């Protein structure tokens, strides 16, 4: 039931996730942040079971920190993706983590953002745009149609809101609150906390 969307733009990565946390039909928390920072320039967006998501993401974050402390160097997004994938893959036949992830990061070395799609089965793929959860069904085609290489930030944000509007409109399970984060050379920034109501005239209200 989680919705995560992400894509790469011109020197930034934009990621959004819904802010619902719940059990079966009940929403337990409306301001749950699913986009956790791995370090200053990477975000792991988690979806799936809450407990597995928390524990697995903590595992990755702490190990990346340990690497930084031991070796005095930051890991690249590619390395973190590979490490995460390996943890998922070795766990799948013993003690599987039911988490699907989107890893977005900005590498100062390459001056580029990158996005990785990671699955609970241990699959990993570098993508330009993608989504996890039910959002993937609706948002995939929008991104296929409108995503271009090197989108400006304003255009990117418009595209993201287009995607989230579609998710709110078509997904029968009510997800109207989303959190949008951006990673660029300055680090991670929360762009907006939006609440979408497709029936209202002023569709998107910014929440503070």
């Amino acid at each position, binding site marked *: 039931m989680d919705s995560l969307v992400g894509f790469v733009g011109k020197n930034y990565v934009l990621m959004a996730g819904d802010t619902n*946390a719940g*059990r*079966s039909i*009940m929403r*337990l*928390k409306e301001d*749950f942040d699913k986009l956790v920072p791995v370090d200053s320039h990477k975000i792991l967006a988690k979806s799936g*079971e*809450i*407990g*597995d998501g*928390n*524990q697995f993401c903590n595992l990755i974050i702490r190990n990346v920190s340990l690497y930084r402390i031991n070796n005095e160097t930051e890991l690249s997004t590619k390395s973190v993706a590979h490490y995460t994938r390996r943890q998922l893959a070795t766990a799948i*036949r013993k*003690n*599987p983590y*039911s988490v699907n992830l989107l890893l977005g990061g900005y590498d100062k070395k390459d001056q580029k953002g990158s996005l990785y799609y990671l699955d*609970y*089965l241990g699959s990993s793929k570098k993508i330009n745009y993608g989504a996890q959860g039910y959002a993937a069904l609706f948002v995939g085609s929008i991104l296929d149609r409108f995503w271009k290489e090197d989108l400006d930030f304003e255009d990117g944000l418009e595209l993201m809101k287009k995607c989230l509007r579609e998710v709110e409109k078509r997904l029968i399970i009510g997800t109207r609150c989303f959190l949008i984060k951006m990673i660029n050379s300055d680090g991670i920034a929360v762009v907006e906390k939006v609440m979408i109501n497709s029936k209202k005239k002023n569709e998107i209200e910014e929440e503070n």
Partner: protein
Amino acid sequence: MFTLGSVLDNDFKSTIEDFSFETEFSTNQLMLPNIEKPFEFAQSIIGLEKDLQENENQLMFHQQKKEERKERALIKGYKGTTTLAFIYEKGTVVAVDSRATSGQYIASQSVQKVVPVNEYMLGTLAGGAADCQFFLAHLGRICNLYELRNNEKISVAAASKLLNNILYSYRNYGLSVGSMICGYDTRGPQLYYIDSDGSRLKNSLFSVGSGSPFAYGVLDAGYRWDLSKEEALDLGRRAICAATFKDSYSGGTVKVYHIDENGWVKISDDDASELWYRYEEKEKKKK
């Protein structure tokens, strides 16, 4: 294999004391039944409905059909209860019912669903009574040891994280715990929801159990951060009362607790059905 006695002994003999929480539960040595394949055994006997639905998709090597597993399930976990807790300006309010059911029968109308962890923290019980009682009592022991070793009161966040890690290590073994850790510490009133599948959520109000949708209705309608103490206690009491009215698995008595900087206090203990008719009388008198 470990017995309960040896678990407690090892706690006291532990040498990595001061800043860690090394207990039998936080290492890889879990307490498991004395049989060949404990994990498979646990999987075969649990019949939790939610596991059957969720794990169907997730665990690709458990190919058994839903009905088969349901039939073979010896342990059925029903969270037949209503517990709620919320934080507000002046503290934390915890309200619970006291009914325990086994299938169609009411086993008891006077169950203690609130377990004190220490003087300023309470844990609530939902799901398997034995599981909740044991792990909350164990949490109380760990918190006590922390205070003795570190000469400071443990925070609610830390206590809930400890319980969360323990329960996460027993993830697929069929435990049924839906507990809320409620307390008041240096950060103010705090409330965490801890689950046997490893979730830990922080929020300003929660309700757990079969009667929770009903309690949420009343709670969400009346909740504000700036409630007065009387209003807050009344809100908690009314929400549980509403849940006991609608949900057959909840009932007995409605117990309300309040936690502030001076610790927790039991405020009231009223029979649920009497309470309902008392509220009705009040409404009639108003008209």
